[in-house]
Structure formats: C-alpha cells, structure tokens
C-alpha cells in the first residue's frame, strides 16, 4: 500500500534502463527551468544586495557592508514588532481559513439541488481583486460611515462605535478577519477536490457497521483528505505570510506599527523608501525564518503526505 513499497517492487522487478532513470528529471525539467530563470536568479541577486548598503536614489554611494544590514535589523525594534505581528497573522489566519474552508467543503460535497450555484457563489470572495476587497472592508469597518458598527449598534452589542482600524488593539484582528473571508474559498475548493478521492464504499461500509457521523468524519474523511489538507495548509501559510496588499491598502501598516508584518516592512523600506539593502535584508531574514518553520513542518508531516 505504501508508496515506497510499490515503487521498490517496480524498480526491483525490472533492471532500470537509463532512459527510465532520467525520466523523472525530464518530466521535471520544464518546471524547474521556468522557476529557475525567472525567480531563482533574481533571488540570488537579492541575497547579494542584502550585503550592500544600497539606497536606490544614491546609486553612487553604494558600498559593501557584509552583515551590517542584518546587525542593524536585529537591533531594530520595528523588526521585532513586525515579527510578532507576522506570527499572529499566520497563526490566526491560516487555521481560521482552513476551519471555515473545511466546513464549507463538507457542506458543498453533499447533494442538494442548487449545489453548482452555491459552489460558484462561495468562491466570489477569492475571485475579487485584493485592492477591491481591501477598500470594501475599509468602508465596512469605517466608524463614521461604515456598516459594521451600524449593525452592532442596532443589535445593542456595542454601545458606541468602535474605530476598528484606528485602534492598535483591534486593527490587526480586523485585517485578519478580512483575510479569512477572502481566503476560505481556497481551502473549500481544494478540500472539495480532495474529498472526491475518498471511495464512497468506505462510508457505506462504516454506516453498515453503525459508525456515527463524527466517527466517519474522524476515521474516513480526515485521513482521506489528510495529504491535501497538509499541503494546502503549508502552501497557504507561505501565501498568507507573504500577502501584504490587503494590509497595505487597509491600514498601510498602521496605526503606528500595529499591523506591520515582515513582508510589508520589507516592501515599505525597499519600494517606498528605496532602501534596497535593508529591505532585502528583511526579506532574506523573513525567508530564512519561514523556511525553517516550513522545514520542521515538512519533516513532521511529509511522512503522512507521502503515505
């Protein structure tokens, strides 16, 4: 049943000719080539940039500073604030998106007359462009003219309007809520596709055995979509960590540094203040941190994905 076992039997049964041995590389070559040329080369260039004191509007004053940018970075209080925010940002957004997406996928996998329509409607938040979403939610949160406070006031949940995005205590959570709304359809669609791989016969057998709905979910559904869930979660962590357009339009990182995440900080330093050396140092540090977390995650879950 396991991947290793079956491949090994295949490989050991026949002597492997060289054509077959290079086949995986041939299959991989196009993907690697595109990625290598378009991302990898610029990325290496960027890593080199981070060792320079390079401010774009001072092209002649550029000089090599070694790890100077990194030393400056670790002494920078904004870096630590942004790091904390990034952790909170990923730690809340991804599980919430996944939970809501899983629920949606399970419901949309049932049979009901308007299923096709419901499936299409649910992906709308994901299909909207980020800038439209950000502006829309900015308006919803607006304490003066927005609709969220109106609703809460009418329901007497709050007594006076809350400045959601202007208060450093609520701003990050408000932006996270927006991103959860935007991103849950992604999980719904991915999980929905994963659910198709579970043989219906397994549920039938379980029902005959009298297993409860929860037990069926726990012992058939979850293991069935496990690999998809693990991969989609992993990819989403990376995507969410890097997505800053919604934050940028909604708060620009403010109030103060309350909604700064590391990619946003890198963006502001590099693209707005044109401090490319420092900006790339932030980006590289972020990539290394995220990379190590992802590596740990993969080591722990890869075995399940591979199974």
């Amino acid at each position, binding site marked *: 049943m396991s*991947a290793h076992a*079956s491949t090994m039997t*295949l490989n050991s049964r026949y002597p492997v000719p060289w054509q*077959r041995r290079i*086949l*995986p*590389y041939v*299959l*991989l070559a196009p*993907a*690697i080539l*595109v*990625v290598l040329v*378009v*991302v*990898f*080369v*610029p990325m290496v260039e*960027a890593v080199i940039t981070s060792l320079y004191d390079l401010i774009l509007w001072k092209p002649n004053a550029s000089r090599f500073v070694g790890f100077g940018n990194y030393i400056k970075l670790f002494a920078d209080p904004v870096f630590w604030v942004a790091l904390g925010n990034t952790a909170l940002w990923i730690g809340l957004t991804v599980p919430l998106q996944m939970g809501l997406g899983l*629920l949606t996928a399970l*419901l949309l996998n049932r049979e009901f007359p*308007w299923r096709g329509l*419901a*499936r*299409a*409607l*649910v*992906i709308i938040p994901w*299909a*909207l*462009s*980020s*800038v*439209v979403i950000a*502006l829309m939610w900015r308006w*919803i949160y607006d304490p003066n003219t927005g609709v969220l406070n109106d609703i809460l006031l009418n329901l007497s949940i709050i007594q006076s309007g809350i400045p959601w995005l202007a208060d450093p205590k609520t701003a990050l959570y408000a932006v996270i809520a927006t991103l959860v709304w935007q991103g849950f359809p*992604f999980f719904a*669609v991915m999980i*929905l*596709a*994963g659910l*198709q791989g*579970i043989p*219906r016969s397994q549920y039938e057998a379980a029902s005959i055995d009298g297993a409860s709905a929860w037990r069926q979910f726990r012992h058939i559904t979850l293991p069935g979509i496990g*690999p*998809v869930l693990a*991969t989609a979660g992993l990819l989403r962590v*990376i995507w969410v*960590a*890097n997505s800053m357009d919604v934050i940028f339009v909604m708060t620009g990182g403010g109030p103060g540094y309350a909604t700064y995440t*590391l*990619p946003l900080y890198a963006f502001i330093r590099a693209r707005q203040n044109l401090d490319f050396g420092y*900006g790339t140092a932030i*980006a590289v540090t*972020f990539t290394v941190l*995220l*990379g190590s977390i*992802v*590596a740990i995650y993969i080591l722990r879950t890869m075995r399940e*994905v591979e199974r």
Partner: protein
Amino acid sequence: MNKPSVLRRILTTDLPVLLIVLLALGPFAWLVLTSLTPSAQIAQSGVSVSPSGWGVDNYVRLLRQTSFVANMGHSLIVALGTVVLGLTVSVTAAYAFSRFRFAGRRLIMLQFLLVNMFPVVLLILPLFILMRRLGLLDTHLSLILANATVAIPFAVWMLTSYVGAIPKSLDEAAMIDGCSRLMALRRVVLPLAMPGIISTGIYIFITAWNEYLYALTLGGRTVRTVTVAIQTLIGEYQIEWGLLAAGGVVGALPATLLFLIVQRRLIGGLTQGAVKG
C-alpha cells in the same frame, strides 16, 4: 444509505450552506449596490439600498469611457496562458514527484517552496531588468512567465498530493497491460486526478487574474490588465467608487463563471469501482 427526508436535508444542508453563501456574499452585496448607484448619487447621499435609485450608469461608463473590455482581454490572455503553462509543466512534475524516487527529489521539492517564500517586491527590480534585456517588457509573455513562477510551485505541490492519493496499483496495472509510463500518465492518472487538476487550474487562474505588482511593472502600457485598470480609478484625492465597484464586480465574473462551468467535474466517485477492483 437510507434516504434522508427533504426537511432534514434542508435543515442540515441547505440552511448551513445558505449561511455560508450569505457570509461570502454579504460584503460583495454592498459592492453590487455601489455599482448600481449612479456616481453623482454616491457623492451626494451614499449608496442606494432601494431599487428605485439603481441604474446601470456605472457599467455603461465603465465600458464606454474606459478601455475596460480591452483590459479584460489582456487579463484573460495572461490568466489563461498562465493556466496552460502552469498546468502543463506542473502535471508532469507532480507525476515525477509522486511516482519516482530519485536523487535530489526532496531538495527540488523544497526549492519549489523556497522560491515562493521570498517577498515578491524585492524580485521586481531584477526581474524588470531581466525582461528588458530579453525585450519582453510590456508583452503578455513576460506576465505569463512571471505569474507562472508564482503558480508553478504551488501547483506542483498541490498536484503531487492529489496524484499521490491515486493508488499506484492502477498505473502498475496499466503498465503491465503494455502501457508506457507516459501512456499510463495520460490514460490512468490524468482522468483520476481531474478534480485536483481543475481546482489547481482555478487556483492558478485566480492568482494570475488578480496579480497586480508584476502586471504594473512588467506590463502596464499596451498590456494593461484589469487589476492595473482598477487601480487607476483610485486617485490621489478621489476614488471613483461607482466605477471601482462596477469594475470589481465585472472583474470577479470570469473566475466565478469559469468555476460554475467546471465545478461539475469536481464530482468524484465515478472511478471508485476501479480502485476497489
């Protein structure tokens, strides 16, 4: 399975689905309302909730006075191009990852993830210079290539897990029956992985459709996508709410319609008998 009564179905399925659909559409409804309210009225009294104040004025202006249709065309070329390129190279890569064990496999898989962890903003400048040297600035190809690099790693990983879920006994059986590896991929794996391929395709389409930063820097003039066009409606001192909302609604249509069409393919269970056998 015993047939659940209609009432029970409504309570356990239709109603919760309706709630989720409302959650998804609630904020979108405001966007639709804004797009239906004439611009002059938005400035004066805000969004109109009653149908009496509605009109298609904004849509007419959007189509007539801005080059939105042309922008949609460019976006469509870029998004579909990215889907074709992305899926073609990802499917074969995913097949290699899930069916072969070879030297450097893990390293290559990790490399795919790593390139996506680096904040895109810092790749823009080197990429801009690269595209200028290749003479690709302001072409569809440059945007397709740039978007593909974002899409391919994700697509490869997603597809690897979908293909990995297909029992290997099936392609082995096909190969024993005389199929070559590639034939087994085409005849057995592709049809079975179709739900996964489609959802990954949707993913690539939406990501490419909504991409802004590359579209602005690498394209922007003759090749101007919807996202860039929408951004020009956000001015220094003014936001054209009416046009922006209309643009947002129209801009979300292609992906939604596409999904409405292909979602039928997301129904599994057709081939399960074969798996059991």
